[in-house]
């Protein structure tokens, strides 16, 4: 038992963070929200070059995965910088394709996902898929199984403007059954993304309350402000081990627990961040909004809190009454 990231895992996260910190993601996000994908695609390529998507793709298809712990490390950083695009969906699609009994679709589609040449999106018994207008591989899971969707409908806006929701056209090639393992990967990476979003919100808000003065003092010296931020920190700190614990076991109950906890912690961080920023935080033009709205959207993406809690309660206990 050594429940700490290895030095290489930490270095991987640090290097992604460093790369993204200078990528001016707010501008990339604003472009993406308007349907201007050029800079987003360029950033996508760099994320792929760093090896992120290859972590989801088995070695047989030019990847090195699936490696859930490293995926969690990466998605914390992608969330911290609010990188736009069908990141979670590409990971889940990769796992799904690799799990198909017929290796044909995987051979055809996976290498381009690993290298970042193509993006994938995925609608799992749901009416919308993220970024269907830009994803080259559009997958839909229905009661029949996994389809390659022939096209997409018009974009419908999310509260997170960077999340462009598109209906997928029904029908299309039936690729096979859809094993549930991919769902766990979607939830795990969503949880990690949420944790990164929450950490960014906390950091930005701490910086703001140190800078902002009212009544002649920094508002960060007010005890009510301090305690609210302490609560945000507590929420994030206890979500983190659930995330990595889930990455190690990939048991559905563990993943569901991580998903609901990370997303609730991120949403609580968003509520506090908005309140402590005041009116400026309520504006779309202030960059904070890019994280605030993402925290809200991730909360219900890939399993809302009720669904996740149900999965925790429904899980069999390990030995007798012992759950964990």
């Amino acid at each position, binding site marked *: 038992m050594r429940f700490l990231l290895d030095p290489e895992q930490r270095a991987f996260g640090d290097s992604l963070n460093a790369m993204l910190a200078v990528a001016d993601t707010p501008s990339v996000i604003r472009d993406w929200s308007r349907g201007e994908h050029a800079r987003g695609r360029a950033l996508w390529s760099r994320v792929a070059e760093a090896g992120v998507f290859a972590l989801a793709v088995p070695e047989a298809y030019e990847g090195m995965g699936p490696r859930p712990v490293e995926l969690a490390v990466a998605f914390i950083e992608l969330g911290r910088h609010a990188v736009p695009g069908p990141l979670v969906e590409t990971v889940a699609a990769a796992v799904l394709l690799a799990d198909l009994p017929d290796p044909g679709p995987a051979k055809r589609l996976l290498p381009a996902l690993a290298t970042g040449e193509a993006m994938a999106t995925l609608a799992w018994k749901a*009416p919308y898929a993220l970024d269907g207008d830009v994803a080259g591989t559009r997958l839909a899971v229905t009661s029949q199984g996994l389809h390659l969707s022939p096209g997409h409908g018009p974009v419908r*806006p999310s*509260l997170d403007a960077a999340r462009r929701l598109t209906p997928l056209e029904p029908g299309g090639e039936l690729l096979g059954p859809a094993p549930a393992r991919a769902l766990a990967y979607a939830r795990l990476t969503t949880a990690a993304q949420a944790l990164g979003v929450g950490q960014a919100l906390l950091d930005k808000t701490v910086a703001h309350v140190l800078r902002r003065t009212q009544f002649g003092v920094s508002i960060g010296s007010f005890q009510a402000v301090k305690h609210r931020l302490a609560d945000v920190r507590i929420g994030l700190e206890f979500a983190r081990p659930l995330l990595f614990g889930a990455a190690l076991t990939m048991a559905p109950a563990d993943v569901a627990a991580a998903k609901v906890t990370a997303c609730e912690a991120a949403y609580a961080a968003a509520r506090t961040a908005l*309140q402590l920023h005041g*009116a400026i*935080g309520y504006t779309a033009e202030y960059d904070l909004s890019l994280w605030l709205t993402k925290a809200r959207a991730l909360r*219900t993406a890939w399993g809302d809190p009720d669904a996740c809690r149900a999965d925790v309660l429904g899980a069999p206990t390990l030995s007798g009454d012992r759950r964990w």
Partner: protein
Amino acid sequence: MDLAHSAADEAFRAEARAWLRAHVPVDPLPSLETEEGFAAHRAWEAELAVDRWSVVNWPAAYGGRDATLVRWLLFEEEYYAAGAPGRVNQNGVSLLAPTLFDHGTEEQRARVLPPMATGEVVWAQAWSEPEAGSDLASLRSRATRVAGGWLLSGQKTWSSRAAFADRAFGLFRSDPGAPKPHQGLTYLMFDLRASGVTVRPIARLDGRPAIAELFLDEVFVPDEDVIGEPGQGWRIAMSTAGNERGLMLRSPGRFLASADRLHRLWQDRGSPESARNSVADALIGARAYQLFTFAAASRFLDGESIGPESSLNKVFWSEYDIALHETALDLLGAEGELADTEWAERYVFSLAGPIYAGTNEIQRDIIAERLLGLPKGRR
């Protein structure tokens, strides 16, 4: 102690209900936060005004019905229950008009109020400045005396409705040498289309331009648009701020209607048990707010003033409103993130509640210090 309304009040309510049933648009108007929607809402105000339903509690001389506070509450219940449109001139009606009634001249009232009642002139508020949020005494925009009036210069922000409104009102520093920061402020009205005014709309979280920044560069305002005495703006504004936090900013009718809407949504979604307590609490909270307001209105009718109690009201409705809309979005599941739904628009609107009209942190300080008698902190 009695909750029954008089026959005359019930008749008033019935008249309002009937009028609304006949007039409320079947399809919702386009969003207030678009140019098209703004115009549609302005037209709706004119329609209300034709039958004197736009400002029921004003004197008849200005377009009202001399309705008592109780009748105003009943009207609001009917208004929101009918699903009638949002009120584009709420800043004018609930913030500026009370100030004019208390501190304006007869000439100002006669000139300003009737076109406010009809929606011909829509008002924006111009309180905040970039460095003065909760700390309103630190305002820096200036009003400089010139022949026949004042020149306004500076910057205002978080001006709600200003993107499409006609005129605005706010405080300006007319005596920079005054010994204390909240002295030497003057309360003025000005034209948003006047020379020297630049309006920069600001999109809120969902991208809608609900607010704006105002840049003022030697904007001339004639003396007739000063409210009360120059230099007395702080005192005058505080009476408006008291009102803003008080009874008329959020009527119970709004939340009764929201709670019913939530209840229907819950039922439409198959009455999921996990949301049961939140839905029940929304219904209970709306009833509590209605009755709290009836009690406050009763005290008001007895001649009592509504003081720091309005801070209780502000914290309650603003946090109630968010909780209600969070429950709604949760009921919608993955669809809850769609931005182009009425629920989403109302949710985003609710998020501003704990921030504006005095942050809830300030309100809790007031409750602790002025209602509970705890020592003033250094804040």
